[in-house]
């Protein structure tokens, strides 16, 4: 441990020790007696006649429900896994009697599942090793299969590894978007759809037109207007910012700095460059240790570079990596 880590350890120990107050033994026993009393009430058996009636009724009901639901259950393959989430996301599958439930990290999603992303929330879904979909807050979407997403309201960011066969159709009320190896965002609004492409190309097809958006461009189609609007968009545009709050996983332990920077580039769209005076070849092969679980890309960058005695600063769409100076955070 270096001096700074040791100091942090000592300071945390000294401060937090003050919070170690203990309840009196008598207070503990009083509390336990009350908790135990409640526990016994919770676990008291129901009178036998009610148990028998309830058991019979429940058995009949379950048999009926199981029969009705069987077809729906067996025909819904799993199509995605929740890799990261933030806030409340409600899901509802299309089986009979389905109820809304909250998504959790690591849970799987069946074809036909409706997702409602609440305000302030977001979710990263992995459909295949080469394809992820992020859904922003206030989004309503339905995953019909591994190659089809219905986006009725809100925003989705699709990341498909270039060159990999990972097709996906995004169907909005105003048009359908497809791609070839790309990173792009689709926003479905009232009577309009917008596609913003960070990498590769995406195609928008509506009832009346077919248009292609290239990397670094956005395309907006309004139902009431014949010709789409187009414009440029930088990889670090504010419209992409929410994506960084839902990073894909990266196993730091044993990876090289070069691999980490490639991940960072994919997550943020920013280009990492080494400043003059840094032996890029040597640093690129530095073996990394530790974990960046739960860190957003910029936090992870600061943490990782600090371990190699490096720092960074932004220059437009570039992240310049430089030697760490004394006192440089």
């Amino acid at each position, binding site marked *: 441990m270096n001096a700074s880590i040791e100091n942090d350890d000592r300071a*945390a120990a000294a401060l937090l020790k003050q919070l170690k107050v203990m309840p009196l033994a008598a*207070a503990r026993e*009083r509390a336990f007696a009350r908790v135990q009393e409640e*526990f016994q009430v919770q676990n008291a058996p129901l009178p036998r006649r009610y148990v028998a009636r309830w058991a019979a009724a429940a058995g009949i009901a379950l048999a009926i429900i199981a029969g009705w639901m069987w077809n729906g259950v067996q025909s819904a393959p799993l199509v995605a896994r929740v890799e990261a989430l933030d806030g409340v996301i409600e899901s509802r599958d299309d089986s009979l009697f389905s109820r809304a439930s909250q998504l959790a990290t690591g849970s799987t999603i069946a074809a036909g599942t409706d997702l409602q992303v609440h305000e302030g929330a977001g979710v990263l879904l992995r459909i295949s090793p080469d394809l992820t979909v992020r859904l922003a807050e206030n989004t309503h979407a339905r995953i019909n299969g591994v190659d089809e997403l219905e986006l009725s309201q809100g925003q989705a960011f699709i990341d498909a590894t270039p060159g990999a066969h990972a097709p996906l159709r995004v169907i909005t009320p105003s048009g359908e978007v497809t791609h070839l190896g790309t990173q792009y965002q689709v926003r479905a609004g009232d009577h309009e759809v917008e596609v913003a492409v960070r990498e590769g190309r995406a195609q928008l097809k509506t009832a009346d037109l077919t248009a292609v958006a290239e990397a670094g461009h956005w395309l907006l189609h309004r139902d009431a207007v014949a010709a789409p609007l187009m414009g440029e968009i930088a990889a670090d545009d504010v419209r992409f910012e929410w994506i960084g709050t839902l990073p894909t996983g990266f196993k730091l332990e044993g990876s090289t700095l070069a691999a980490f920077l490639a991940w960072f580039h994919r997550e943020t769209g920013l280009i990492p460059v080494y400043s003059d005076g840094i032996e890029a070849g040597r640093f690129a092969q530095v073996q990394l240790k*530790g974990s960046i*679980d*739960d860190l957003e890309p910029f936090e992870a960058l600061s943490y990782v570079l600090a371990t190699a005695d490096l720092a960074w600063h932004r220059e437009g769409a570039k992240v310049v990596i430089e030697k760490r100076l004394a006192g440089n955070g």
Partner: protein
Amino acid sequence: MEQDRLLVQQLLAGDQVALRRFFDEYFDRLYRFAYARLRGDAALAEDAAQNTLVRALRGLPGFRGDAGLFSWLATICRNEIADLVEKSARIAAHTVSLDAEGSVRDAAQAVAAPDSAGDKALVGAERLRTIRQVLDELPGRYGEMLELKYIEEWDVERIAQRVGLSFEAAQSQLQRARLAFRSALEARGLSAQDLLP
């Protein structure tokens, strides 16, 4: 998380041994959680911790395991504290819940200055409250991990198991948590020295 789910399953099955483990593991932690928020009122902290466990038992079937069991209990405990603060004028006159909002907090902050004997006690309680607040405001699991390490005095291996990380990842996170703790203090214009007795 797996341990939490298992414990909840055992409780739902009516396992008495699991109840004792549940109580032993969480009562003291909840007591400390409440104590710092109630400015060192031991009796109220005891009520808050006890009521939390009682309410938790009633709500166990609803525990989904998305967050850790303690996070879930802490949420219940916050509500308990807010209830206690609201219900008692005596409490409102001498305490501020960290989680109390609006009129409750305003009313509590508007109380007259305590006498000199109370003033001394307040300095200590205020210090604890500040430390607790900084701890609670740390992002992600940092607060929980620091709490387990320095208050509950768990070793890194046990913490790693609890939060579902490898030993190395837990060590890294603890290091970052300490750094975040120091940064959070500095952001308030405080150093560790300012919060020592």
